[in-house]
C-alpha cells in the first residue's frame, strides 16, 4: 500500500461530524479495498475485523472531522454555527463546502481593511456574524441546501517537502490510515488465538459519541486508540506540544493503562522506534476516554501523531511520525504472540 496515496484519499473525503449514513457511504469504499469483513454499527461507525481468535483487541480511530452546520439561508448566503470545536479564527475569506443535495462551494465574508472601524480591528468575528457567500440565487441555493446541512473546510492535500504534507482533517484521518496500515500488515502475520477489530468511529468531535458504542459488548481484552496531538510551532507552548518528526507520542494518563503505556515505551525502545511521552493529568480528549470506561473498563493505550494547526483549514504533518506510529503499533500488537 502507498500510505501517502491512501492518506490523500482519506483526506479528500468530506466526513463531517454529523449523523446519518452519508459518511459511511463515503468511507466504506476505501476500507473495502483492504477487507470485506466489515460491519456498520447503529451509531454510524465502521468496524473491520481481522481473525477469529478469542483474545480480541480494539484498535480505534475516528473518521469525523470538525465541521459547521447551516443555520439559515439568506439570498446568496448561508449562515453557520460551529458546535464541534472548529477554528472560527480561520474563517474570514476561507473557502468552505456545504454538503447539500450537491456540494456547494462558498467563501466566508470578511470586512475589507478599508472599512474596518477601530472597534473591530483585532477582534475575531463571531461565527454567527459569518456569511458564507455561494454566488447562487436564493432559489437555486434553497433547492440544493437545507438548514442543518453540514459544512466542511474545502479540501486540499499538498506536499510541502519530502516528508511534510498540508491537508484537511489529518485529525483523525491519520488514525484511519494507521488502522488500514495495520489491518494490511497484520493480515499476513496474524498472531494465533488473537483477533482485531479496527473501528473507524463517528462523532468524536461531538463528544466521543461513536467510540462509546462501536464494538460494544465484544469483550475486548485491550484497546489501542490512534489520534493526533499538538505539534510544536511558534505560539504553541513547548511543554504542551511535540516537535514534528519526533516520532510516535505515547499517551500517559491516569485513565490509560499504565502497563500498556509502559509496554509501548519498551517496545519502542527495543525496536529503535522514535517516540515521545505525552503526559496528561486525566482526560486525553480522545476516544480513549470513552473506551477505557466501557463495559466495566477496557485497558486502553493511546498513540498520537503530532500535527500543526489542529482544527484549522490546513493541518500539517510529517510522514516519519506516521511511520513511527505504525511500526510501534505493529510491534506492540504482534509482540504478544
Amino acid at each position, binding site marked *: 500500500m502507498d500510505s501517502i496515496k491512501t492518506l490523500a484519499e482519506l483526506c479528500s473525503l468530506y466526513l463531517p461530524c454529523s449523523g446519518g449514513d452519508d459518511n459511511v457511504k463515503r468511507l466504506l469504499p476505501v476500507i473495502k479495498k483492504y477487507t470485506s469483513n466489515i460491519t456498520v454499527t447503529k451509531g454510524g461507525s465502521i468496524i473491520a475485523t481481522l481473525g477469529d481468535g478469542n483474545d480480541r483487541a480494539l484498535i480505534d480511530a475516528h473518521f469525523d472531522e470538525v465541521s459547521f452546520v447551516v443555520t439559515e439561508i*439568506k*439570498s*446568496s*448566503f448561508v449562515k453557520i454555527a460551529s458546535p464541534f*470545536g472548529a*477554528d*472560527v*479564527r*480561520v474563517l*474570514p*475569506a*476561507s*473557502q468552505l463546502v456545504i454538503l447539500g443535495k450537491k456540494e456547494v*462551494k462558498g*467563501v466566508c*465574508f*470578511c*470586512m*475589507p*481593511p*478599508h*472599512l*474596518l472601524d477601530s472597534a473591530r*480591528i*483585532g*477582534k*475575531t*468575528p463571531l461565527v454567527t456574524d459569518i*456569511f458564507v*457567500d*455561494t*454566488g*447562487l*440565487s436564493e432559489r*437555486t441555493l434553497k433547492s440544493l441546501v437545507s438548514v442543518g446541512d453540514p459544512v466542511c473546510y474545502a479540501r*486540499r492535500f*499538498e506536499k*510541502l*517537502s519530502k516528508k*511534510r*504534507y*498540508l491537508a484537511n482533517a489529518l485529525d483523525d484521518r491519520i488514525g484511519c490510515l494507521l488502522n488500514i496500515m495495520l489491518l494490511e500488515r497484520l493480515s499476513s502475520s496474524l498472531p494465533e488465538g488473537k483477533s482485531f477489530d479496527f473501528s473507524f468511529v463517528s462523532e468524536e468531535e461531538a463528544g466521543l459519541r461513536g467510540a462509546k458504542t462501536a464494538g460494544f459488548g465484544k469483550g475486548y481484552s485491550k484497546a489501542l486508540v490512534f489520534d493526533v496531538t*499538538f505539534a*510544536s*510551532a*511558534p*505560539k*504553541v*507552548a513547548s511543554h*504542551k506540544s511535540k516537535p514534528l*518528526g519526533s516520532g510516535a507520542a505515547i499517551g500517559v494518563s491516569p485513565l490509560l493503562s499504565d502497563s500498556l503505556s509502559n509496554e509501548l515505551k519498551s517496545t519502542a525502545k527495543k525496536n529503535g522506534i522514535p517516540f515521545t511521552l505525552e503526559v496528561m493529568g486525566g482526560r486525553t*480528549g480522545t476516544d480513549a476516554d470513552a473506551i477505557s470506561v466501557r463495559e466495566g473498563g477496557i485497558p486502553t493505550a493511546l498513540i498520537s501523531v503530532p500535527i*500543526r*494547526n*489542529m*482544527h*484549522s*483549514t*490546513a493541518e*500539517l504533518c510529517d510522514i516519519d511520525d506516521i511511520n513511527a506510529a505504525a511500526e510501534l503499533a505493529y510491534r506492540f500488537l504482534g509482540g504478544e504472540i
Partner: protein
Amino acid sequence: MKLLKRLCTANGISGREENIKSIIKKEISGLCDISEDRFGNLIATVHGKKRDKRVCYFAHTDEVGFIISDYDEQGFARFVNVGGIDAAVLPGKVLCSGRRKGVIGVCPVHLLSASDKETVLKSEDLFIDFGFEDKKQAEKRLPVGSAVYFEPTFYQAGNEIFAKALDDRIGVRIMIDMIKSKPLYDTTFVFTCCEETGTQGAETAAYGLNTDIGVILECTTSAQTPDENGGKAVTLLGGGAVISYRDNGTMYDTELFALATFVAEKNGIKWQTKTLVAGGNDASAVQKTAYGASVAAFSVAARNLHSAISVANKNDYFSVLKLAKAFNDVIGL
C-alpha cells in the same frame, strides 16, 4: 473570462509585476505602441482620430501579498505585508511562493484562553510554515526577500466571480478589452505598478504623460451582506458600475462625474455611487502629479477585497467595460 482567470491566478505583488506585464504585452502586441517607464509602468498608446485633450486610462497590475523578512531557527518564516491586509484574514490561509506552498500557522484552539480566542494576532506576530526543517534549509530553498502570495483561486458561481487579485486584474482585463476593440480616438492606457503601496506607479507614470483627462478603472470595496444592503455596504454587487465622486484620496472632477452618469444613463448602463467615502486609488496621484489632470474612476464592486478570495459580479464587470468604452468616445473632443 479566460483571460481574467489567467490574470488573477498569475502572481504579482507591488514591484514584482513582470508576470502580469508579460501576459498583457502578449495580448496587446501589434495593436498599439508599448513602452515601459523607468519605474516599471507599462504604457500602451493606441492611435485613432486626434482629439483636443490627452486621455489616459489607468489600471494597476499589482496585488497585495507578502515578502519573507526572516526565518527563526526552526525554519518558520516571518513576513511583511505588501499593501493593506487585515491580519484577521490570515490565520490558516494557504500561501504560495513560486511552486512552494505554505500556511499561516495557528495555535490550536484547544490551547487558547477565552480571551486569546477572541483576539486577532497582528501580522508581525504571525508566521508562515513552509514545512522547512530548520533555518538553513529554509534560507537555501526560499531566500529572505522572496515574494509570497495568496493561493491562486478562480471560479464562477451564479453571476459571481470568486478569485484572488480581482483588485485590480479586473481593471487590467477591461483595458486589454478596450485596446482590442480599437478606440475611436487616440488613447493612452497605463498599466501602473505599485498602487497598493501608495500609488507610486501612477505618480511616476503621470509625470511624463501630460494627462488632461485620467480615467481610473478599479475594483472597489463592498461590505454588502444580507444584513447590510444600505449605506455601510458602500457599494453593491450587481449594482452596476461604481462612478466615484469622492473617496479618501480624491475629489473627482464634477464635470466628468456628471458626464459619466449621463453616458451611463443614455446607454442603459447600470451604475451606482459609493454610499460612504472610503478607499482610494491611482486617481489621487494622477490628479496631483506634474500639471495635474481631471480624473474620473469607474469601478467594479467586490467583497473580501485584499483577502485570499474576493468576490465580484459578472454583470458589474460588463457595466464598467461598456461605460469605459462609451465614455472614451465622447471625452476630450
